[in-house]
């Protein structure tokens, strides 16, 4: 691996000096939480747009 990288090998990166599970567990939990939050927020936004659109359509039809 390149000399400016701290790790000698990918295995060393994964192992994290013995703390591998905890470091990657923490990073994984963060990724999961942010993804779920993002998905939920966008889902709410999509639903709101759809509801507003159908309300607008109903108005123009009436």
């Amino acid at each position, binding site marked *: 691996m390149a000399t400016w990288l701290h790790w000698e090998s990918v295995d060393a990166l994964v192992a994290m000096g013995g703390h591998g599970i905890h470091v990657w*567990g923490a990073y994984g939990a963060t990724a999961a939480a942010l993804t779920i939050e993002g998905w939920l927020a966008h889902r709410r*936004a999509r639903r*709101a747009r759809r509801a507003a659109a159908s309300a607008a359509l109903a108005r123009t039809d009436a």
Partner: protein
Amino acid sequence: MRFTSYAVPSRFFRASTSLLPWLWATAAMAGAAGLSLGLLHTASDAPPGDAGRILIIQVPAAWMSMVVYAAMAAWAAIGWLGHVRLASMAARALAPTGFVCTVLALVTGAFWTRSTWGTWWMWDARLTSELILLLLYGGYLGLAEAIEDPRRADRAGALVAIVGAVSVPVICFSVRWWDALHQGATVTSRQPPELTDGMLPATGLVALAFLAWAFAIVFVRLRAIVLERERDTAWVRALEGAVSAKARVRGIRGAPA
């Protein structure tokens, strides 16, 4: 163009449409830079060793949980006492993000504790205060979501948030007191999570990423709330009417949407 003109929901909606891509880009770039710096390039020194890389996320998450609570309480107060509707909506939009940041601070804190001390939890001042903050967020969210009338929900939430914000200094003081008292009794002195100097640049970048991300997510949620509540106003009808009319026309002509 005065700042207060953005208190009008329609202006906020338009402004946020152009701001969002920049926010996502900032979050992505700062996050990538911070993570690569923290995970790949920096040597980790000091006792925690490589476990200290957890703190690159834990510390910014804890910061954000507190900043978002303060912002939530402030906007809720402005919305309630200043009668600015968008401010109340902003408080409601901030709460879930703050809750998630608090959960993250606790979960990553647990991973750090497990990695450094062998136990999954440590009742020290910082983690315990974070837990109490989680309860404060839970109270706000529980109350606001339980009330159906949006006006009453916003106001009740504002009062809870303000009371909480005023109590936070007292609570933090008492928890630190409690921690100091019981620390003397244990044999091992429990050191709170400390950032080593080498990790500071990475942590700063990740904090920036968190901030940009939080802004983006809160904007997305706030836009949803604005659409939900302002559904029957002229500007929403115009906005959504134009969009859906276009879609309908495309559908009639049989062209791909």
